[in-house]
């Protein structure tokens, strides 16, 4: 395999705010700057010059924009001012397997609940014990350290689950059978090994480890056998081996930078990635039979796992997360202007509409990436009929809008409402959404000490008020990346409803795309923008990046060059069908292997 990128980049100079600034001058640019590397103006502006992604090589997101397939990777230049940083080429030469980092991951709330369900069935009060869900970053990619408050919730949840199990004789007997004549401690030992293998998603073999579990049982057993089991369960359900996805790997080397995962670890990766659930019986049988020790063996599990109801929802869930559909929950819209939005059912409908669209796209429309941006199909129920001038019922019905007012996710009301302000549309948010979510470009932060924004005035359109961004040179550098893209969405108000006027002025939805690899140029209206996006290689590549982040729970990094190439090839080979993404990811180095643990490894 040859180099994936060929583009070389040189320093540019531009005039900005009255002075010449060397492009990339001392800015520590990493990340998805590749696609923007030709955009000299962006970087040169003080207002726009920024630490795009990271400020150090060791930052967890340093590879955020590991560019791929034409962009070029901009690396840190060590902070020595005045020179442009070198552009390293991402390549896959020789393909030495390197899975990249695989940090310890806490189970997500959903994974936790599914795991409990698999182990103990439905437990009353578990969600309450677990406390509020904490809003995560995009795909939960940045995991902070666990807090005491969280641990208190895990404690309460463990108590709740343990009490539910031992409080029900049938479930106690199922989980911890103990017949007359067998020492209680022996029974407990069996529980540790049997239940532990499931709860920890790994066999427990170390005798001392088993003993310390049994000791915890013994403390409670002073009261009763059931209470001993309760104590044991309380402990096991708060163990980091339960709460985190622990991966140690094996000693079987694939390369200097990669070892094979144990079969149990592979099973857990498969099940949590595809289902957000722990391995089930069938997967555990595959562990036992040795079916998960080869790349082919792992790939062979995909068919049945994706047939499973949880597997069928996988790509749908990815799309919801990618499009920030969940953000509708906490969305604020001006109650005087948008009273209908204040009802919870309206918000639920907006989300349901998005889900219905994704389902339809994946199952009935072929699931091609291009359809994501061009599909004329819309869904409505009784809450949302007004969007399309029809009357809906309790269930979602579909409708084809062939007049160009419906183009896939770009006109999906949930997306447009999230990317808007409480009282008006927002070309800025929508432009940023296209840049960040669809093109994987990372924009610099807005500067401090900006001039006051123009005031909201009746009779003046949102677009007109954005004019200052063009007129003021401290704004235009960044905003030329955002506003002209976002203007394309101006036919849609803050709730994502189609409109032809704003502030009693006719809508001007003409826009312009700059600083992209293959879709620069003017367009008029969102339908024309959609065509550009649907045909863009940069967008296609971005989808695979987003999918990688979602599936792996981390950002792609330069070392993932070969994994990303393999993923993109798999996606292309399947005709860019979104449903092919799961199969493509499990065949990558990143998924199949891990790096050897650097510390001493106990046997």
């Amino acid at each position, binding site marked *: 395999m040859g180099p994936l990128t060929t583009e070389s980049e040189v320093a540019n100079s531009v005039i900005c705010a009255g002075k010449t*600034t060397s492009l990339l001058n*001392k800015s520590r640019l990493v990340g998805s700057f590749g696609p923007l590397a030709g955009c000299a103006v962006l970087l040169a502006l*003080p207002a*726009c*010059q*920024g*630490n795009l*992604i990271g*400020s150090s090589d060791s*930052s*967890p*997101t340093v590879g*955020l924009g590991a560019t791929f397939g034409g962009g070029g990777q901009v690396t840190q230049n060590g902070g020595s001012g005045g020179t442009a940083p070198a552009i390293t080429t991402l390549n896959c030469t020789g393909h030495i397997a390197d899975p990249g980092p695989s940090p*310890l991951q806490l189970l997500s709330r959903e994974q936790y609940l599914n795991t409990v369900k698999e182990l103990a069935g439905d437990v009353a009060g578990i969600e309450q014990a677990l406390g*509020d869900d904490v*809003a*995560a*970053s*995009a*795909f939960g*990619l*940045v995991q*902070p*350290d666990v*807090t005491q*408050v969280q*641990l*208190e919730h895990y*404690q309460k949840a463990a108590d709740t689950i343990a009490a539910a199990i031992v409080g029900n004789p049938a479930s106690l007997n199922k989980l911890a059978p103990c017949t007359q004549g067998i020492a209680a401690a022996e029974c407990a030992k069996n529980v540790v090994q049997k239940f532990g293998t499931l709860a920890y998603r790994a066999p427990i073999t170390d005798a001392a480890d088993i003993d*310390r579990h049994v000791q*915890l049982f013994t403390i*409670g057993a002073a009261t009763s056998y059931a209470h001993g089991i309760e*104590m044991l369960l*309380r*402990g096991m359900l*708060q163990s*980091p*081996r339960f709460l985190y996805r*622990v991966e140690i790997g094996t000693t079987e080397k694939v390369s200097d930078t990669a070892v094979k995962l144990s079969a149990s670890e592979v099973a857990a990766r498969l099940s949590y990635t595809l289902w957000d659930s722990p391995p089930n019986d069938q997967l555990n049988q595959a562990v036992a039979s040795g079916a998960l020790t080869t790349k082919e063996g792992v790939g062979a599990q995909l068919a049945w796992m994706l047939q499973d109801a949880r597997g069928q929802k996988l790509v749908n869930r990815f799309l919801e997360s990618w499009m920030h559909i969940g953000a509708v929950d*906490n969305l*604020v819209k*001006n*109650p*005087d202007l948008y009273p209908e939005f204040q009802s919870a059912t309206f918000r639920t409908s907006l989300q349901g509409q998005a889900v219905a669209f994704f389902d339809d796209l994946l199952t009935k429309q072929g699931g091609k990436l291009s359809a994501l941006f061009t599909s004329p199909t819309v869904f409505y129920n009784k809450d949302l009929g007004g969007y399309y001038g029809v009357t809906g019922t309790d269930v979602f019905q579909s409708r084809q809008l062939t007049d160009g007012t419906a183009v896939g996710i770009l006109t999906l009301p949930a997306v447009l409402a999230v990317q808007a*302000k*409480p009282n008006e549309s927002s070309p800025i948010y929508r432009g*940023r959404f296209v840049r*960040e979510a669809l093109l994987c470009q990372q924009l*610099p*932060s*807005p*500067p*401090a*000490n*900006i*001039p*006051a924004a123009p*005031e909201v005035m009746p009779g003046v359109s949102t677009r007109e008020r954005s004019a200052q961004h063009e007129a003021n040179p401290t704004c235009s550098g960044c905003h030329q990346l955002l506003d002209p893209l976002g203007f394309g969405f101006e036919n849609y108000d803050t709730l994502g409803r189609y409109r032809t006027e704003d502030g009693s002025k006719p809508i001007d939805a003409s826009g312009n795309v700059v600083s992209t690899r293959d879709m620069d140029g003017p367009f008029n209206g969102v339908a024309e923008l959609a065509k550009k996006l649907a045909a863009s290689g940069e967008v296609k590549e971005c989808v695979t990046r987003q999918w990688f982040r979602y599936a792996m729970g981390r950002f792609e990094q330069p070392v993932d060059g070969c994994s990303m190439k393999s993923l993109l090839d798999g996606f292309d080979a399947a005709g860019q069908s979104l449903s092919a993404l799961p199969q493509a990811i499990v065949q990558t180095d990143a998924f199949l292997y891990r790096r050897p*643990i650097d*510390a001493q490894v106990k046997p």
Partner: protein
Amino acid sequence: MNPKEPIDLRTTVSRRKLLGGLGALTVAVSSPIWKAATVFGQDANAKAAKRFIGMFSANGTIQKSFFQQDAGTDLPISLMPILKPLEMHKDKLLVLNGLHMYSTVENDLGTTNGMEGADGVAGKPGGPHMKGPGAMLTGGSLLPGSFTGSGGPAGWADRISVDQYIASRIGKDTQFPSLEFGVRIQGQEPLRVISYKGPNQPNTAVDDPFQMYARIFANANLSDDQLKKLIAERQSVLDFLKDDINRLETRLNAEDKAKLEAHLGGIRGIEQGLANSANVCKPLMMPAKYDVHAMDKFPVASRLQLDLMILAHKCNMTKVSTYMWANADSWQYYPWVGVNEEHHTLSHSGDSDAAATQKLITINTWHSTEFNYMLDQFAVVTEPDGSNMLDNMLILWGNELGAGNTHTYKNIPWVIAGTAGGRLKTGRQVNYKDLPHNNLLVSVCNAMGFDDVQTFGIPGVCTGPLMGLTA
């Protein structure tokens, strides 16, 4: 709570006062050990504890209605409209002007001359609203990350915050090392957090009063024997978990080990709570459960959380807390004071927009009213040593911005209430000339009794303690 009813901690008693955790259970009520002790297990002869509270409200202020506009460095306090509700306590206040959150833009003071992104200087991660909360108590800045709302991308803050530093020094002998309160906190994570245990260790606030109540008054309904059993069993499980973590750590790489160390820190915090789990106070009367995240319940939650926080301090369940009115970049509406518009958009209004300015003053003044309610509560408490509780406190109130319409990190509206046990000379507005707020954080540490602290936050930004604060 009745705000004006005096409380004397020397005479208030409660059955639970003697529990004092597992060890204390074996001590008979009549034991002479307890004779000299007060309700809260403190020695009546010992000096009352100092306490720290960090407060946050969002979207900047209206500078002209917050700061006295007179020249001079040291002004006798004369409250401007936004702070007017604090009139009764003005002698216990310090208003600090001219302190900037340089740490949001600089690594070495003066390198950017306050112009982020100036020639040769890279900006730091996060938009202005996002940077503020992470810097306010840390004197640091945000790490890179993937949070994008309100201008990203950014991660969490890069270092420990002053409240957690103080908690590490004085928080070891209370049920909670610290407590983090919030009111309707929404949005992307870095907007929601002012308290940090360390880099990438957000100490997230609990914005549900019912959840906070359950935390603080857990097990309040148990009998002594039940509590004793619970504590013993919990401790067994915690011991098991500590052992578990130690075993696992030997098998992981350094990065994952660090993650488990933080986990272990949380476990130790729970242990500390167990060891000090006497519920010395009568639980607060809570209203019927309601939707705590409803926009219009903001004032209800504000008061409940204040009451819980006040109680937690009065009962010595903790000596350190933080409190956030909404998140940074708040989109909260304030219809109960006649402002049915969202705060953030309003805060973008130009200075010439008199109507919007008045609305922002109204919003900020409401926060002062709530702040005043808290001061009222502390001011009426007499400590075991006869001193006044408010006098022993250092309550620091800040904001993520100086003003919303310019997104400036300069002239953050800082208020200090309390004298930290007589250390601070209050009743003044002090005008500094462009100093980093890191210096304030140093002074806070010093006033709390940690004179060994000479720098806080990013070392290159901090230039030492603030002059002229102490009595």
